[in-house]
């Protein structure tokens, strides 16, 4: 893992360095999301599933997105691919992918991008793969959709990809159906399918949650290896901070559809600034920690997105809440500039968090 990791980081740094060092103006990142809002109209009212999310991702880098169930991680990713039903949802804000505006782009345009330049893999590969077609057909189909390859060439490509993701006897196994594969192999096949057109961005929505622990590590290794070879940027959604620590360059912590903390992995995990992140970290079993230390999940339950709490959405569960927290919504900013308005430019390396506490209080709380 570490070997893969460092190589990957070097690659990514090199890629990033090109633009930043040679050019005085910072190059446009691969993905630039600003103030993304996703709302669903439901019978009970309007669900604000994502409510003003801003982040960036450079080529070849990995962004980890963490947060409790229902915090809007999947909704964000599906919005990037334009997969929400337009009749039921409203999407606002900006998401530029390599200079292309994804939000509001014509469906036809998005369709050409999906699977070719942005791909997605899902939590449960058994339900995410069609039970009615062979693995080979499903991979070849994606390839044929985006290239002029004929049936035979696409088939050969499917074998090549399956072999590349480490499935033995790929030429034979492309004729199998998903239910004939093991869980780990299915996710490998899913990865092969997502990467068959060598996309610039792979969105992996909890790709290992449904798998055995040993298989999880293998799948993450595979992703790292393919990322290094293909230079793919990855958005990795996970509940597992251990995974984030291992593979992500940057971390976005989401709560109730908003970013509460955003920064490089080292910053966020080593010097977390937001009380919610503190809670997440203390609920995580650490290999270097005391084994007998009990798991402490963040107490309380996630807020309603129909009728979110005023001010800081986390205040009903926050042990540090002050009066201001109930009335005023904190912006993402460097902690030194809090409380109130601040320099809200989120940028990895500028760890930012959305909390009214001032630096001294935070230091006191974490010490």
């Amino acid at each position, binding site marked *: 893992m570490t070997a893969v990791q460092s190589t990957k980081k070097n690659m990514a740094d090199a890629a990033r360095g090109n633009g930043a060092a040679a050019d005085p103006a910072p190059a446009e990142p691969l993905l630039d999301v600003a103030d993304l809002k996703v709302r669903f109209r439901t019978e009970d009212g309007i669900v604000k599933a994502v409510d003003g999310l801003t982040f960036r991702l450079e080529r070849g880098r990995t962004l980890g997105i963490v947060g409790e169930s229902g915090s809007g991680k999947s909704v964000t990713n599906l919005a990037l691919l334009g997969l929400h039903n337009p009749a039921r949802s409203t999407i606002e804000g900006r998401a530029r992918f390599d200079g292309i505006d994804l939000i509001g782009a014509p469906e036809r345009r998005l369709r050409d991008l999906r*699977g070719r330049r942005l791909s997605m893999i899902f939590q449960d590969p058994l339900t995410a*793969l069609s039970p009615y077609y062979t693995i080979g057909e499903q991979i070849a189909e994606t390839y044929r959709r985006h290239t002029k390859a004929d049936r035979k060439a696409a088939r050969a490509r499917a074998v090549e990809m399956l072999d590349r993701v480490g499935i033995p006897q790929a030429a034979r196994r492309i004729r199998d159906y998903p239910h004939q594969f093991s869980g780990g192999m299915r996710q490998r096949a899913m990865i092969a399918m997502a990467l068959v057109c060598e996309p610039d961005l792979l969105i992996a929505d909890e790709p290992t949650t449904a798998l055995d622990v040993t298989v999880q590590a293998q799948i993450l290794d595979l992703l790292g290896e393919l990322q290094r070879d293909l230079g793919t940027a990855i958005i990795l959604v996970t509940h597992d901070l251990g995974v984030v620590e291992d593979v992500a360059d940057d971390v976005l912590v989401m709560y109730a559809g908003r970013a509460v903390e955003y920064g490089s992995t080292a910053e966020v995990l080593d010097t977390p600034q937001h009380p919610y992140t503190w809670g997440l970290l203390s609920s995580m079993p650490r290999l270097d920690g005391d084994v007998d230390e009990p798991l402490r999940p963040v107490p309380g339950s996630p807020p309603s997105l129909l009728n979110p709490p005023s001010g800081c959405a986390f205040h009903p569960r926050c042990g540090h809440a002050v009066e201001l927290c109930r009335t005023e919504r904190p912006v993402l900013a460097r902690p030194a500039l809090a409380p109130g308005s601040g320099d809200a430019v989120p940028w990895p390396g500028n760890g930012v968090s959305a909390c009214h506490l001032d630096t001294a209080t935070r230091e006191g709380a974490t010490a």
Partner: protein
Amino acid sequence: MLRFLVRRLLGAALILFIVITATFFLFFAVPDDPARLSCGKTCTPDTLAAIRANLGLDQSVPAQYWDYLSGIFVGRDYGEMRCDAPCLGYSFVNSEPVLDTLLDRFPATLSLAFGASVIFLTVGIGVGVVAALNRGGWLDKTTMALSLIGASVTIQFLGVIARYVFVDELRWLPKPEYVPLLDDTPGWAGGLLLPWLTLAVVQAAVYTRLTRSSMVDSLQEDYVRTVRAKGLTPFQVTGKHAWRGAVTPVLTVYGIELGTLLGGAVVTETTFNIPGIGKLAVSSVANSDLPMIMGVVLIAAGAMVLANVVVDALYAVIDPRVRLS
């Protein structure tokens, strides 16, 4: 696959056997005496006895049962007359061989079922898919309202009204009647058009609703989201992927429907005076014509069982998980 078919066919034979046996003994549980019925007003005890002997009713019930069963496999003799296997006996009412009558009537029933199926499946599935794709939109709401009306009318009512309006008054449709396909193909289609349409209106409503709901479910499957995430066009998403998950419930219901239709669409055949198995069923029950009742039951059960086997085989074709387990 072969083992599957053999097993299913053996099962089918067993079901048919049970159905025959049950019908046979049920018949003797009812108080009507068929000999008395065919004896007429001026019935003397002698004639009655003669008729009894002629029909085989003078023997014990188990003996009659045995004669009937063995007749199916090896044929049987009625006095001088030889009835070759498969012998289903002679009608008590008009002494026609049951098998000939069934074979004579079956084409009408088959024609009705075939034509109506083509119409209601095409319309029902087509409209259901369109409604599912426009879920929540005005098209969806309109078609669902229409299908609710379609599903609530009865064939008798619709048939009589439609006949009056479209045949008698407007003269848009030819008079409903049955002409054998091979005698006069346009006449066959023309005469059956109104019965087909009437049956199809009621059925299409059912298939529209069924297709819509299973398609809506299928469109929410994870794998459909995946194929959309791969960049496939809506046509590919629905036409290649989503329908596979939606077709199974439709097939299941149609399998039962087809079995029922081939056993005779009683109401439609009666309403439009189509000489099929359904009308035959009604008249043979009214006349306590045991051999004919047995024949109708056998053909209805056979159709049902056969449709079932075909549907099961199709499940395996559609879903590799069924095929490969």
